[in-house]
């Protein structure tokens, strides 16, 4: 199944090193998607653990603590790095 990937927030240029879409086996989960996304990132490219995660518009926690739910074909996995600029 195909999963769309969106990355935004702080250091949004990080999106350029992530694929816009990944392919998972049926029954794949959020953690399967995150593993695929991050396994080839260098140490200085790792995503912040406080990144918010959402699946197709529904917030599921942070990179550090989230519901590891199953994904459906065409879901959008959204990563929003924390933003605090005033």
């Amino acid at each position: 199944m195909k999963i769309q990937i969106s990355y935004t927030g702080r250091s949004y240029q990080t999106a350029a090193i992530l694929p816009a879409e990944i392919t998972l086996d049926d029954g794949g989960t959020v953690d399967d998607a995150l593993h695929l996304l991050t396994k080839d990132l260098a140490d200085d490219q790792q995503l912040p653990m406080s990144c918010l995660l959402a699946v197709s518009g529904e917030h599921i926690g942070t990179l550090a603590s989230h519901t590891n739910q199953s994904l459906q074909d065409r879901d959008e996995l959204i990563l929003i790095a924390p933003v605090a600029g005033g």
Partner: protein
Amino acid sequence: MGGPAALMLTMGGIGRVIIAHGGDMISPDLNRQVLGSERVLGRPRAEDFGDYLRSMNQFVEVEAIGHEPNATEAAELAERCDIILSCPPTFEERLRLNRAAVEAGIPFIDAAQWGMTGTLIVVKPGETACLECLYPEPPPFEEFFPVVGAISAATGSLAALEAIKILSGTGDPLWGKMLTYDGYRGKVTTVQLQRRALCACCSSR
């Protein structure tokens, strides 16, 4: 982005605006501080920001506080307000204002920016996720980060719009949602936020 938010609220005739901002006006901030100018460089910001706001609408009462409120002051201010707009540069300050709003039971709008991206979170205490539901611990502080004044003004104005909607009972506020405008890509994302059952700030409300 507290400047554009306060300006839009004042021009909109909101009634009374309390603006809190510490420090003196410095030139690097002139790319986004719409209430400042080269004329007031080196002077305490809050005082001049207050004067500028008063000059924009004689019918709005403006109170300017020349420092960032601590937890006690934030709680006292929340008791005197109908809504809090949170626009400081650190998560510690944002979480402090969030807690003051939740304890006072008043709406809370968090507006933030990084480079060309702005985010907006609208909290109805006891009903929707609060900022601490999202960030139980403050994410790491970043002292230097890019600021584009256009996104500060846009996000601050959207925060003011949400406040006007809430206070006037008009339209559909973004209750419990996070809106992200990624200006770098021209993409808008809206996420429905989830309360955290063990949130130390709001779970008992």
